[in-house]
């Protein structure tokens, strides 16, 4: 990765506590290049109107940008445009999936299968669906290696399983799960496969065909795009059978006082005025990533993660969570300094302008399994450099000296 791309991200030139910002929390949300910031403001300045319904020029221009963004996202993930539903984020996308599948596929006595490494966004919607439908929720265990226990998965998968919901890349362990293998097994018992791809789509080439899932959720703001927009991709025939979560304007074909007829996907799932400016900006983010090339993005993340893992493993006072092999990981590392609370580590690093995450990363059951109430997490993206990883590792030594 050419380090000059840092100049594209205005925020990276600011200082924090008198030091150059080292932003290592892209797994929570990514920073934005000027192209994205400007695409959003350009829409408001030049082409803003509501989409789809207006017959005037401005409305047509805004609609082109909105639908154009859908086409760009579809191209990024090797999908068809009408399989891309815009939501307000991964959480809403997963709530839509859980609600709609709950309505159509899950009944009393059925089972929904998740994993112990889910982000709360891919856990609680399924808890609610199971509760509503009188079904039970089961969870595949995570092995000590930080990988999914596939033996446990096969044991828990049964003809009663109606949905298998799992994360593609864990936001804590970094584990890249074998979604294809899981999906093939799940499809053999006619279960629908839902994937939380919030940590994978921004960081690596992910083709919907190869992935093998039925519904896949991810966020714009973790892939250089704005907040307020996310995606639920769905296999066409799966989307067609699902009812909408949000009802109202824009999502219907014909309405009577006592009933209404849903529009086809994706409009069926986009009730109300959608995030128009955010879509235009997401389109710009996808353009930016495509210009870099997703293979290059993946390689850069891998390189930085390898450096971080090597550096952390070389420090006896550090415990690393998740797979040791960087090839089996996304671009993030969770760790702890022995006997030091993660919040203390994060606060002291912040004093040096280094932003890392500390907490349970919306994965409390996983942290219970790890036996740690909280962890530190450093995550990397296209704008991070090897020097920043070095600065982070050197700062950890100073934290250890101060508190260890």
């Amino acid at each position: 990765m050419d380090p000059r791309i840092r100049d594209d991200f205005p925020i990276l030139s600011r200082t924090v506590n008198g030091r150059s910002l080292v932003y290592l929390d892209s797994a929570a949300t990514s920073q934005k290049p000027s192209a994205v910031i400007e695409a959003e403001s350009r829409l408001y300045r030049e082409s803003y109107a509501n989409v789809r319904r207006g017959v005037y020029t401005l409305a047509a221009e805004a609609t082109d940008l909105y639908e154009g963004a859908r086409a760009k996202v579809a191209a990024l993930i090797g999908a068809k445009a009408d399989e891309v539903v815009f939501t307000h984020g991964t959480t809403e996308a997963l709530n839509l999936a859980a609600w709609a599948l709950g309505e159509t596929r899950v009944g009393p006595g059925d089972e929904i299968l998740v994993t112990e490494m889910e982000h709360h966004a891919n856990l609680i919607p399924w808890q609610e669906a199971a509760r509503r439908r009188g079904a039970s929720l089961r969870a595949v265990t995570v092995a000590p290696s930080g990988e999914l226990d596939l033996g446990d998965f096969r044991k828990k998968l049964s003809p009663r399983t109606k949905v298998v919901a799992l994360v593609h890349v864990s936001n804590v362990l970094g584990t890249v799960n074998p979604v294809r293998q899981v999906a093939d097994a799940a499809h053999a018992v006619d279960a629908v496969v839902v994937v939380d791809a919030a940590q994978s789509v921004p960081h690596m080439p992910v083709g919907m065909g190869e992935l093998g899932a039925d519904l896949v959720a991810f966020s714009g703001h973790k892939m250089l795009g704005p907040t307020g927009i996310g995606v639920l991709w769905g296999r066409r025939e799966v989307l067609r059978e699902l009812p909408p979560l949000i009802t109202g304007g824009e999502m219907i074909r014909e309405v009577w006082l006592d009933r209404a007829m849903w529009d086809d996907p994706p409009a069926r799932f986009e009730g109300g005025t959608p995030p128009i400016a955010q879509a235009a900006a997401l389109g710009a983010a996808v353009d930016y990533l495509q210009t870099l090339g997703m293979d290059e993005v993946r390689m850069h993340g891998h390189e930085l993660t390898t450096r971080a893992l090597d550096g952390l493993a070389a420090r006896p006072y550090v415990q690393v969570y998740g797979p040791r092999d960087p090839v089996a990981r996304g671009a993030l590392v969770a760790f702890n300094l022995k006997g030091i609370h993660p919040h203390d580590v994060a606060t002291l690093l912040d004093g040096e302008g280094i932003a890392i995450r500390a907490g349970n990363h919306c994965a409390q059951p996983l942290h219970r399994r790890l036996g740690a109430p909280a962890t530190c997490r450093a995550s990397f993206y296209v704008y991070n450099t090897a020097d920043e990883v070095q600065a982070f590792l050197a700062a950890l030594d100073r934290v250890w000296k101060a508190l260890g």
Partner: protein
Amino acid sequence: MSGYEEVILDHWRHPRNKGRLPEATGSAVEANPLCGDVVRMEVKVQDGWVAAVRFSGEGCAISQAAASLLTEIVQGKPAAEAAGMKDEELLAALGGVVRTRLTCALLPLRALRKALGPKEAER
């Protein structure tokens, strides 16, 4: 590294009045499930005074140091005064706490106020 104030480091490394207080007349636990901080404050109130106070728990340096420092501050004070202690007083005694960590610093004070509930303050 700018680091923590010396008072925080000192109380974290050498906690005062840490342990259980079997003769406690009041006790309360406050926790922050988001980060795992847990502080239990136990007080013995006698004739309206804080005769003894101990803390126990686990968590970050700030929450544990604040608990330790708090026990020193309120020991031997009128119970009503201890219960009425303001957030700012504890934060100042800690030498100032960054705003992202106020919850940690104030966890022990919340526990103390509960332990010194209305019933305890009158005792």
